[in-house]
């Protein structure tokens, strides 16, 4: 069937409109449908990424994902509620991450590979974060070295960890 508007392209959007009992049918191509107004465009977009995401966000009743009691339902900084977040699939402000963190980790495990950042750290966010990341990495390496019985390497790693810990521990106490 050709588009009834331009009579050139195949009709891919089929639409029946009933206004006060009067029925009219439309068979349009994508382009003419878009020109006809945003009703068609919106209908075509109804099933989109946001809907899929909010579907995922609403999977809370699924087994193995307990929702901790007393978790805040609203971000105090921007006022967005958790329900609103699940509907639009977007946070309201950076603080939402902490406000909803209890419910966030299971979600992040579902849509990401983990819930902990391992990539770039902004220099300005301070050396603390850098030191902590480095410590984490060293501890992992130490475990690996011990498992592989590379004791010389393990000793070196242990010293480095102690050095960082004393530096870092001092800062934490302040």
């Amino acid at each position: 069937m050709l588009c009834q508007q331009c009579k050139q392209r195949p009709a891919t959007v089929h639409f029946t409109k009933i206004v006060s009992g009067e029925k009219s049918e439309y068979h349009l191509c994508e382009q003419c449908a878009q020109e006809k107004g945003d009703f068609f465009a919106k209908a075509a977009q109804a099933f989109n990424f946001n809907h899929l995401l909010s579907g995922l966000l609403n999977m809370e009743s699924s087994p193995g994902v307990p929702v901790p009691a007393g978790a805040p339902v609203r971000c105090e900084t921007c006022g967005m509620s958790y329900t609103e977040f699940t509907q639009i699939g977007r946070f309201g402000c950076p603080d939402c991450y902490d406000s909803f963190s209890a419910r966030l980790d299971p979600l992040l495990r579902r849509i990401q590979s983990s819930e902990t950042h391992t990539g770039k750290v902004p220099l300005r966010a301070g050396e603390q974060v850098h030191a902590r990341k480095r410590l984490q990495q060293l501890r992992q390496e130490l475990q690996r070295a011990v498992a592989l019985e590379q004791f010389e390497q393990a000793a070196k790693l242990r010293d480095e960890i102690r050095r960082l810990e004393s530096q870092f521990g001092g800062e934490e106490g302040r």
Partner: protein
Amino acid sequence: MSLGEFLQHGMSQWIRGGGPDDDIIVTSRIRIARNLQDIPFPVLQTDSHADEVIHLVQQALSNKSVQQIGRFEFVRCSDLSALDRYMLVEKHLMSRDLAEQVKHGAIALTDDEVMSIMVNEEDHLRIQCIMPGFRLAEAWQQANRVDDALESLLPYAFHERYGYLTACPTNVGTGIRASVMMHLPGLVLTGQIHRMLSAVSQVGLTVRGIYGEGSESVGNLFQVSNQITLGETEEEIIGNLSSIVHQLIEHERAARRALLSQNRGDLEDRVCRSFGILAYARKMDSKETLQRLSDVRLGIDLGIIRGVSASILKELMVVTQPAFLQKYFREELTPGERDIRRAALIRERLRLDDTEVH
């Protein structure tokens, strides 16, 4: 303005330039999402929040430390005509969402349009680097340098555990989306594409057609990008994507060789037929344009068509879109009129080259 001049002006570097493996890789692109502390994300933004973000970004971009890396021209969406905004969309520099976000949006661009920064799109900042050919590592380096310079001037929202905070949880962590636009006619013509693409999506990458609706891809153009942004480093993300893209390139080359050796007659007929249609047709819709251009570009890559510049696919896939067409012909055009003008523009572009068909 002649078409030659029109193409010289206002064309991004990725359209005119070349790069490694550019017989298959159209562009490499890195996009980094960043947000500012203590300001709501654009979804909840008031006018004054939006102005604050714009002011802070504009100020940072005029700082010497940033200017040493890139000279950005900054413009608010409200100061651009609708046509200009949609031309930026067609050049892959602005998202459709930002083009419609006239009130709060802004964009910063370098002269060569390699670097761009969208302001107040879904996130406060979307830093993008787009280059022709297979240059993901280089694009990341450049985007990262701009990010470093901005970070020293702007208070980014960063969380020790979650990393860079973004409006959508699918971008949190590194905030990075690395993507490669590939032209894969060989895999499509040999019927291998679906198997290939479903394999790719099983290793944490997303594939989609660049043009066309749903799963359909027009013009054999595909975009492969990382899906995960949290839990992997930027280098891991880019490394994974690169190694998959390398394999896709090898398969595409093998498919093209197989077509040439086993099916040369059919292939030449297809390529030359499409060339003839582009050179003589009086009406072309955008779908057919992309399909025929894909054939012609394959013909150029395989030496069947000579004398036509290889950049013709990129140039025409941008310039034959609605906003560019209307800019070139300087009038508003209905879809029907566009098809006629599109055909005229393509014929004119082909006359600029000294073609030889073998």
